[in-house]
């Protein structure tokens, strides 16, 4: 397998380019971490501040969780990088089955 990054004939130049790219990638990670922290704080605040209707809070915090998980998957777990077609298939396959289970259990089961 060729090391396709070393293509300028000068390893020094390539190293600097890759370092810069990794550092840039890391900056996006920090931004997404800040956003995740922010979403978490909003979710906790929505529950801590008593005064909102439960019918509003519940869908609202679930939406916040879904957004946060997308950041986690696409940035922290690198699903935004190339070569993640199969992981997406596996994960979304699991999510589809899992969503169906949750839908079933919360609608068909009653006591």
């Amino acid at each position: 397998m060729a090391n396709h990054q070393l293509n300028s004939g000068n390893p020094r130049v390539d190293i600097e380019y890759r370092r810069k790219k990794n550092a840039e990638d890391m900056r996006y990670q920090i931004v997404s971490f800040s956003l995740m922290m922010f979403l978490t704080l909003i979710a906790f605040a929505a529950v801590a501040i008593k005064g909102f209707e439960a019918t509003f809070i519940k869908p609202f915090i679930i939406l916040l969780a879904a957004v946060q998980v997308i950041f986690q998957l696409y940035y922290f777990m690198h699903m935004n990088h190339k070569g993640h077609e199969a992981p997406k298939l596996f994960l979304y396959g699991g999510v589809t089955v899992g969503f169906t289970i949750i839908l079933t259990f919360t609608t068909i089961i009653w006591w």
Partner: protein
Amino acid sequence: MHVEEKFTHETWPASPEKATLEAKNKFLGFWFFLGGETVLFASLFATYLALKDRVPNTHQALAKDLFELPLTFTATMLLLTSSLTSVYAMYHMKNFAFKKMLLWLGLTVLLGFGFLGLEIYEFNHYVHAFHHTFTSSAFGSAFYTLVGFHGAHVAFGLLWIITLMARNAKRGLNLYNAPKFYVASLYWHFIDVVWVFIFTVVYLMGMVG
């Protein structure tokens, strides 16, 4: 490029986690496993949602009696931060900085132990202060199965990362262990993904009522 090859900063590949055939297989297989884990946790969430607050008599504690914001918040902050520290570890792995990677993995492990300690305290508190146990109600069974399964994943993740660090401490980074570290960090992130839904669906929605 083979697994035993010695690398330098300059020869280290850009995507060491996928540089060998074994690494590619590991990467693919692990994501397949995570797809299965998604189904596992979804079914535990479904069970919890169906059995939430189903208790045999009025003396038993319900979700809104049990959960407290400060504890859940602290646990969430610990686990969320540990997800970031493991991102830092993989950043240093890609830059062939083995010592720095170990340092950040060490931080991840410490934060993980903090989270696990809080969870043990929490379960102990529920059992002794509320008599909320695995067998006290359907609610109790569903709660401890879901949150306990997640806690077991945290414990396993900690063991996994510690073992990798100890086993490879003298070896340094190569294409044999880089994919192992990468996959372990994916597992750690997945644990955080599950926790995001646990703190939202179990704790926050439980407190709302």
